[in-house]
């Protein structure tokens, strides 16, 4: 799960950075008269770190760019369940509030007046996907639900006084028999 990954990675890297600062802070009061060797060692570390970050980060970055939510809207050719979504102050208008697991749901999201953000939360209130809702534009988000249940749609772009209470429900049922047979 990306949230956990982001959290753990942040904690580890921030922890390493903190350790480096504490290490140096604790030794700041000692004094070496000739700083030149220390400085050239630091430059070496800087060089190594630079290349290490580059070598690790580049493949990670390329990997994360393989499956972007934008592209999948275009290449997923299976038939989708289309839900038209219009954000209003302060409610979601959905063309249907029913969907089923297994088949991609295509949310075509726009807004009546101001910007909103469509955030899809599962029954444990975990955010599973989102897309912005902007007037005059339609943003298309494809998401395939893997768990049935009642999902909540929250607003993720500040839209005025009732922003926090702009909540709708989406009922995601088990796959229909036809669906199951086809898969």
């Amino acid at each position: 799960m990306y949230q956990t990954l982001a959290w753990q990675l942040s904690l580890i890297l921030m922890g390493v950075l903190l350790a480096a600062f504490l290490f140096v802070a604790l030794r700041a009061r000692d004094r070496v008269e000739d700083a030149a060797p220390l400085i050239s060692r630091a430059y070496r570390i800087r060089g190594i770190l630079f290349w290490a970050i580059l070598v690790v980060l580049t493949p990670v970055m390329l990997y994360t760019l393989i499956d972007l939510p934008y592209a999948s809207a275009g290449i997923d050719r299976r038939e989708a369940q289309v839900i038209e979504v219009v954000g209003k102050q302060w409610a979601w208008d959905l063309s249907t509030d029913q969907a089923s697991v297994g088949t991609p749901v295509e949310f075509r999201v726009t807004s009546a007046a101001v910007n909103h953000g469509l955030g899809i939360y599962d029954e444990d209130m975990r955010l599973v996907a989102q897309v912005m809702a902007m007037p005059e534009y339609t943003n298309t988000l494809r998401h395939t639900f893997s768990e049935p249940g009642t999902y909540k749609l929250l607003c993720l772009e500040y839209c005025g006084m009732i922003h926090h209470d702009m909540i709708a429900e989406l009922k995601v049922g088990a796959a229909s028999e036809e669906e199951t047979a086809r898969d």
Partner: protein
Amino acid sequence: MTDTYVTTNMTAHDRTPIPVLACLATAGAVVLLMMVFGLLLRLAQGGMLDLAPDTFYELLTLHGAGMVGIAALGSVAVMWYFLGQYVRLSGAVFVANLVLFLVGVVMILASVLFGGFAGAWTFLYPLPAQPMGVWSAHAAALFVGGLLVIGTGFLLLYLDVARAILGRYGSLGRALGWPQLFGHDDGRAPPVAVVASTMVLIINTIGITTGAAILVMTLVNLYVPAFGIDPLLAKNMTYFFGHVFINATIYMAVIAVYEILPRYTGRPWKSSKVVLAAWNASVIMVMTNYPHHLLMDFAMPEWALVAGQVISYASGLPVLVVTVIGALTNVHRSGMRWDLASGLLLLSVFGWGAGVIPAIIDATVVINQVMHNTLWVPGHFHTYLLLGMLPMVLGFMYFLARGGRPTDAAGAERGIDRIGFWVFAVAGLGFVLAFLAGGRAGAPRRYAEHLAQWLPYDRAGALFAALVLAATLVFVARFLLRLGSARGRVA
């Protein structure tokens, strides 16, 4: 108009210009008030304080605008003080900026407190004009106008900075150290204070001009609704401006680290080729990585969003590798004396570097899809603002309060200062982690009311916030009490 010029090559023993002290005193007082507002917001989210939603969003708007404002004011004071040691800056323009700032603040306060404006500091079109009757077009216009006045002041200041830098170095390229960067490093590159100021002057002139354009368009739209703006263009312009403006505060404030730490350690911190390369790269990267604010706007051209991620990843390198390692190298086994200035400045470099980590992670499109606009976002930006930019400015304030030189007598720092430092550092870290943890749990940002499962993070955040506020109160009070020594004596 008569121009007052600060003396060139001002040494640490010259008197600190009064406008610099006025800026810092204003920033100190306002940061305390905004922290109180922030604490109220966190208490309300945690269900420990009953705030009506309209009051919550008004306070949120004030907190955002106020904090961004004092970040700019405080960091400009840092830049102006040190840059003034190398080039001839106009005191009149600096004062004009402070006056325009205060006028803008009054307009913003009136708009929010009397007009009920609560469109957030980002004033994202078309919300200012479409509040469902919660505030009037006049209130929105007052807010937008206030930002415009503040922006005008800063723009004037940067034009003067440009004039002064060009007067001394002849071209922006030379002020950015291009001859040394691309040619033979003769060791005569401009000091980092000049390189950084040039970098900021370039990006912020463009940023503020873009901001002014969208502010004016918003203003026209408020009274002539038929004058519509493309919402995606408006969002690009607004976030480009906001992103550049807030980033610039850190790049100005960090000059304090480059200038003051070496005075404590006795080791020079030169504009080497690597340092120059990092600052020059930042000119481009800060301006081009802003699409990471629009990763969930699928209508954007895909290449722009991919570039947003790629450049965001790359832009972490100069900060983390060059400034962090540079600061650590400068301090390591230098025999440095600790006092609040040196302590806060080292903390600030940690805070900046630490904040960049969750920020870059969130700039990954697939992660952004489940973390964008959750509390993860205030989590990372409070890390580099509260634990980065702010201690840079506070460290500078202490440095001045010490008469502009490192503490020479051991124990000159009071016990309460030391306690303040540790409370600030530890509680500050706790405060930002509580935001990040809330973001991990999916709590959206800018919510007046939170679900039960998010309350523990809010309550921990509120507790830490109260401690941060108390520590900051000590710092600011100490500075105000020592304004006399901060002014200094003529040598």
